[in-house]
């Protein structure tokens, strides 16, 4: 079966800082030869610490920024070679949900207008049909008809994330990239949004690229997980496998730092020495389990 999304040798470089004598010799490689593929209906987790390049990877995949090199195939379409007009048309199939729901919602627009905007831009149906679709989307994400005419500031953080989700789902995308979708929310609200994401996936057959730093959450909801370190993937495996039998030293260090939820039962921390690890390609260490060792 061909994957829904196939990313090969993705590279994103930023030009070296400084000028003349002070110019750093090499450009900064934020994403360094990253390859992975996601099957339809799968939830693929991308984890790593800040600055590891996970958000840049996602943005390159959606071509919100232009990668330096590599290949991105979405349902057989070569995303990176699409001319602007066709890229816009293709974008309806892959959408993004952001971390800070308030930062991604226009404060001067009513919730109904925000959710209906993608439909208007892509000129989907008549005005009446669009209005009906927006009401349906509100219902889908657990908002009410009364919420249609409210402004973003009138909602709680969790409700704002529901608006962001409704907007992302408006054009019936196949792939939704979730970049830290619940990390700005309170614990009790986080669970509601996570459940909503899970329900929507089952109902609508969505595929998720799920970026998060909360490793416990990733373990809970992802089918497969890729660990990113300094722009490179160091390990990719089915979620349970990764969390119970990590192979790469960085993954092991990262997992050992997760707080246990059992007071007094503290796992021995595993330190990680970057210098001790050779830079190698991913290889299959066991079934569907890849590591750069």
């Amino acid at each position: 079966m061909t994957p829904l999304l196939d990313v090969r040798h993705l590279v994103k470089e930023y030009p070296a800082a400084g000028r003349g004598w002070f110019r750093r010799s090499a450009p900064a490689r934020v994403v360094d030869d990253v390859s992975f593929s996601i099957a339809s209906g799968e939830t693929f987790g991308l984890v790593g610490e800040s600055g590891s390049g996970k958000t840049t990877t996602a943005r390159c995949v959606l071509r919100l920024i232009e990668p330096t090199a590599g290949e991105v195939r979405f349902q057989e379409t070569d995303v990176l070679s699409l001319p602007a007009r066709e890229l816009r048309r293709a974008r309806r199939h892959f959408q993004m949900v952001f971390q800070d729901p308030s930062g991604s919602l226009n404060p001067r627009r009513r919730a109904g207008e925000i959710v209906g905007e993608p439909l208007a831009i892509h000129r989907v149906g008549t005005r009446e049909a669009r209005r009906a679709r927006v009401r349906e989307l509100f219902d889908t994400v657990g908002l009410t008809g009364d919420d249609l005419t409210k402004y973003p500031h009138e909602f709680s953080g969790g409700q704002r994330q529901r608006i962001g989700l409704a907007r992302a789902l408006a054009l019936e995308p196949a792939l939704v990239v979730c970049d830290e979708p619940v990390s700005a929310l309170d614990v009790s609200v986080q669970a509601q949004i996570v459940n909503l994401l899970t329900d929507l996936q089952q109902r609508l057959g969505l595929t998720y690229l799920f970026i998060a730093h909360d490793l416990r959450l990733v373990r809970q909801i992802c089918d497969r997980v890729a660990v990113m370190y300094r722009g490179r993937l160091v390990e990719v495996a089915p979620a349970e496998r990764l969390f119970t039998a990590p192979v790469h030293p960085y993954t092991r260090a990262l997992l050992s730092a997760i707080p246990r939820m059992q007071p007094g039962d503290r796992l021995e921390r595993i330190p990680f020495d970057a210098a001790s690890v050779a830079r190698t390609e991913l290889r299959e260490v066991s079934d569907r389990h890849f590591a750069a060792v």
Partner: protein
Amino acid sequence: MKSPSDPVRLRVERLRTVFPEGPGHDVPVVDDVSFDVGAGETLALVGESGSGKTLTALSIVRLVPAPGRVVAGRVTLDGRDLTALDEAGMRAVRGRRIGFVFQEPMAALDPLYTIGFQLAETIAVHGLARGAAAGRRAVEMLEAVRLPDPARQAREYPHQLSGGQRQRAMIALALCAEPSLVIADEPTSALDVTVQAEILDLLGDLRRRLQLSLLLITHDLGVVAEAADRVAVMYAGRIVEEAPVARLFAAPAHPYTRGLLASLPGTRPGRRLDAMPGSVPAPGRAGPGCAFAPRCAEAFDPCRVRPPTEFDVETDHRARCFLHDPERRVAGTAS
């Protein structure tokens, strides 16, 4: 761990802080809050945003931003009544007897001065040492928080350090006047998980070595499990449950605490989480009864009529919930 013989270092009694909302109408943000922190003990104050945990800390040191104000309660530190102090007296306590660590170290560090200068200045201001001696002490403090090459780091400016190093520098700043209590407000929330682990280990280590008391404010139950001796859970301005950390995780008594623990990922198999319905009420928006009642699956008649008082669940474990009202429990067994 706390034992009954441990002296109480910080005692907070019936603290109440309000913000005005229109003329003659005050909204409580910290309501009837009482707790003790023993010598060498870490008490975690846990809650979601708007629960009043940070305002409780600010009320203790009388730094509540205007127009908010502390209207009732008593705070004693090492037996000394802080509420009776005037502003000058309070200023002598802040930084000297009580150190602070914040989520964002750049808020506490001055970008224009080197780390070493800021430490030495603080040491001199509190009259602990001056001149070269203060400088030497500054380097010792950086060593104590395990910054690599402390003599060199002392000459660096805050922006030259990484996030984790800055957090270490701020801990050094909080400790340099040898306070008996440190208030740490989300000290690791902005850090990556591996750096968080290092900072938590450091705080635990310093606490043991210096017999420091720590009031740890956090929303992260993982941090609580790792670092706290006792936990006070806040909801809508009140402490709803307090217990030793192992007890709280093993046998939470308040439905809110139970809901919080159940909603965490990794606590049950399958993809769905056990989510609590609704969200935290805005200050002043809770009804006459228990603020949690609208979200509570176990709420019964009295919960909607009046706020519950605290009931003992066990020794050293109390909950503000009618489920633990002994009269109800007696009635329950009788029927």
